[in-house]
Every structure is written in structure tokens, then in C-alpha cells.
């Protein structure tokens, strides 16, 4: 089955962004902000909307483009449809099932990549997709989103870490480093399975230190323009993963803990979105063939992300609800600034791939 043209991929991305919009508004609703009705009724679904629906769309779309098989695009379609079902107030099982189908699609697509080049990192990417599927199945069977959250976090974190592991091949990375990486992943999987949160957090802490030590970003900071920008995004994200690990080891991942919001968003916003901001200038063109030229304005959303997240985390640590509530609104606005920056840069350079 042949690949989907870029013009066919963009709608899939926009479809997934509906879940981003709905998911962010749902999150704001949870903190007491008034939002449009579909998002308000989905306030409790912020996690699945952001991770399974939105990031599920983005990551499975990337994987489909990477392997070039048409069937793989069913995964982002299902992920986006799942998000829409949740926002439309359809019976929960509809959105949950679509999420499972999407995750299964990503596992299959990742398996193709793994067969093409069997290596630890392609294995990690397939494992990450498996974590997405496990999270969705746990949600269906237990009815508890909080039980699925550790697995959804692993989906995101291992996808990113797997891709970073791949890049360490360019450096004289000692063989022991890969073994340590595998051990950390093992720790994360075991602790998620037996639900020991502080151990799970220790895994994130260790992974963050590993990334700070071995990632090619350390070297690329000395480069310039886009390469340097990506490196700074990554390293700043790793710092947030360290913070999440520390908070988690202090018990923050326990449902109901006053630091839980801070810990989860240190990962979701600080680690994951810093990664998104850094990679958008290369992934968006890779998927859509629409170029995003480098410009220092790219640093603006990144700086705002860190500032507003710091406020939110501080609000969480000091149990200051008003601060946390307002900072979360600013977090949402940062995403708007980010999208606006991308649109601005695309319009300033309308060159497209010709083949």
C-alpha cells in the first residue's frame, strides 16, 4: 500500500489538534475556568485527550510517514476520532476503543521499523507504543484514568528517549551506557506494573540524568541556529524530568497528592512540550513538506513555557491554588503563542518540496 501524500496528512494533524484544543480546555475546566460545553463535560478526560488522542495522533502520524505504508495512517485517524468521540460526549467505550485501535496501529508500524533495522532503539519505540496500548486497556478494564496515566507517561517518555538513544550512536557513547539505559527502562516497566510510584519516579530521575550525561544535545549546544535551538529545548526539558523525578520520589505521583499536578506537568509540559517546540521545525516539514525556517523568535514560546510552568509548579509546591489556576491558563496561552509562531514562520517562507 503506497504512502499518503503530504496533502492528505495535514488534515490528520488538524484532526488531532482538535483533541489538543479540547484537551487543554478540559484541563482548564478542571482548575475552575469556564470553557465551552464539550470541553467542560470532558473535564475529567484531560489526560486521555492530551496523551492518547493528541500525542497519539502526532506520534503515530510521524511513524506512518517514517515507514511510508498507507495503512499506518489509520492509527492517527483513529486517535483523532477517539478524541472527537470523547469531546462529543459519546459513550466512553467508543473513544476508548478507538484509542486502542490507534495504539495497536502504532505498535504494528513500529514493528515495521524494527524489522527494517533491529536495534535497541527501534525496540524501545515499539515498547513505548505497547505502553500506550496497555494504558488504554487498563482504562477500559478499571475505569480509572489514574491507573492508565503511568503507562501513558511511559508512552511519551520512552518514545522520546528511544529517539534520543538512536542519536547517541553518532557519539563515542560507551557500551555500558546502553546497558544502563535498558536497566532504567526495566525499572520503569516493573515499577509501573507493580504500581510503586516512588520507584517509578526514580526511573524518570535516572533517565533524566542519563539523558543529561549522554545526549548529543550536550555537544550541539555549542553549534548554532537550529541545531543549537533543538539542543537547548532538549536540555531544558531534561531538567524538568529531573524535577518530576524528585517530586515523584517524594510521593507526588500518588493520586490526590498536592504535588501531583506539578509532577505530571513537569513531564507533560516541561519535558514533552519542550521536545515538541524543539522538533516542530523539523518534524512539521518532514510530515507536511512545508518548511519552517529557523528564526530566533522560536525561543519565545520555549522561554514562556518554562516561566509559566515554573509558576504552576511553585503554585503546586506551596499549595497555592490561585497561582496554579492562573499559571495553567498561561500554559494554555503559551501553546497558542507556539502555534502562532509556527504559522508566522511558515507564511514567511512558502517554499515547498517539489517531489
Amino acid at each position, binding site marked *: 500500500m503506497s504512502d499518503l501524500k503530504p496533502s492528505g496528512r495535514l488534515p490528520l494533524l488538524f484532526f488531532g489538534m482538535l483533541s489538543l484544543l479540547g484537551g487543554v480546555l478540559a484541563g482548564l475546566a478542571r482548575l475552575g475556568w469556564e470553557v465551552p460545553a464539550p470541553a467542560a463535560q470532558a473535564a475529567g478526560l484531560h489526560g486521555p485527550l492530551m496523551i492518547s488522542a493528541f500525542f497519539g495522533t502526532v506520534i503515530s502520524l*510521524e*511513524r506512518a*510517514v*517514517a*515507514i511510508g505504508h498507507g495503512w499506518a495512517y489509520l492509527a492517527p485517524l483513529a486517535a483523532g476520532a477517539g478524541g472527537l468521540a470523547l469531546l462529543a460526549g459519546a459513550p466512553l467505550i467508543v473513544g476508548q476503543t478507538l484509542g486502542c485501535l490507534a495504539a495497536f496501529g502504532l505498535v504494528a508500524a*513500529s514493528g515495521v*521499523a524494527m524489522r*527494517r*533495522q533491529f*536495534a535497541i*532503539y*527501534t525496540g524501545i*519505540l515499539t515498547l513505548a507504543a505497547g505502553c500506550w496500548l496497555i494504558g488504554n486497556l487498563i482504562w477500559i478494564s478499571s475505569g480509572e484514568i489514574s491507573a492508565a496515566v503511568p503507562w501513558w507517561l511511559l508512552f511519551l517518555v520512552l518514545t522520546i528517549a*528511544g*529517539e534520543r538513544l*538512536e*542519536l547517541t*550512536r*553518532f*557519539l*563515542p*557513547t560507551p*557500551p555500558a551506557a*546502553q546497558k544502563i539505559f535498558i536497566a532504567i527502562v526495566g525499572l520503569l516497566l516493573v515499577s509501573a506494573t507493580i504500581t510503586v510510584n516512588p520507584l517509578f519516579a526514580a526511573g524518570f530521575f535516572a533517565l533524566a540524568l542519563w539523558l543529561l550525561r549522554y545526549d*548529543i544535545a550536550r*555537544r*550541539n549546544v555549542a*553549534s548554532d*541556529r*537550529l*541545531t543549537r535551538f*533543538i539542543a537547548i529545548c532538549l536540555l531544558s526539558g531534561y531538567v524538568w524530568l529531573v524535577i518530576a523525578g524528585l517530586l515523584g520520589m517524594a510521593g507526588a505521583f500518588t493520586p490526590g497528592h498536592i504535588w501531583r499536578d506539578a509532577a505530571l506537568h513537569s513531564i507533560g509540559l516541561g519535558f514533552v512540550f519542550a521536545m515538541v517546540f524543539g522538533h516542530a*521545525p*523539523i*518534524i512539521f*516539514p*518532514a*510530515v507536511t*513538506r512545508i*518548511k519552517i*525556517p*529557523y528564526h530566533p523568535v522560536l525561543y519565545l514560546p520555549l522561554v514562556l513555557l518554562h516561566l509559566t510552568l515554573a509558576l504552576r509548579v511553585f503554585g503546586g509546591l506551596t499549595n497555592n491554588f490561585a497561582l496554579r489556576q492562573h499559571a495553567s491558563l498561561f500554559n494554555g496561552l503559551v501553546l497558542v503563542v507556539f502555534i502562532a509562531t509556527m504559522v508566522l514562520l511558515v507564511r514567511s517562507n512558502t517554499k515547498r*518540496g*517539489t*517531489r
Partner: protein
Amino acid sequence: MMVPHRPPETQIAMTHPAPDEERVRTLLRQVVDPEVGANIVDLGLVYRIDIAPGQVGIAMTMTSPACPMGEMIIDDAYAELDRILPDECQPEIRIVWEPSWNPTMMSEQCRLRLGWSEPPADQQ
């Protein structure tokens, strides 16, 4: 993707009829992988350049089959080639996965820049 600069000698090259392997390699050095901060030639991703009358065939690989950047890097490579090669010369780029890329394929300059002090053993 970084916008490649155009050195003056390539302006003169536009009037020169036939490409050779070295010129094609020089053109492809303008195509950079921003994740690594190195160009595709120095990374050892360009496996073969075949010059025939009216045709330039390039076989190259990507470092990761899970990476969606393949098409964009190919686009950039075509853009470089189309800019300089004469109109009657058609470039054709094929992505191949064999042999698998490994760090020993990087140029010496690239390896030194990335911190290798001696030739890398295959890490896989």
C-alpha cells in the same frame, strides 16, 4: 532545515555541462541533519553516486527507519541538485536500507568533531 549557503564557484558551475561525482558530493554537503549538526555526506549516508549521460543516480540511507525526516532530506537534496545541475540532467535519489548505516561510515572530520578520538567500532 538550515538554508544552505551558495559559494561563488557554484554560480560558475551552472554553465558547466557535465556533473562529476565530486561536484555532486559537494552539492550534497549542503544538506544537513539538524539533529546531529552534520551534513549527509560527512555522516556517510550517501552510499553511491552514479553519473550517466543525462542522469545522476544517488543511493543513500537514513540513520533511522523510524525517522520521518527521510522525505525532507531527499527534498533538500533534490533542491540542491536541481539548482546546479543542467536541465537535461535528471537526478534520481533512492533510499536504501542495506547496508545498515553505522558510525564507521562517518568522515574522519565528522568523527573528530563529534568527539571520537579513534575509529568507532560498530556499536550495534
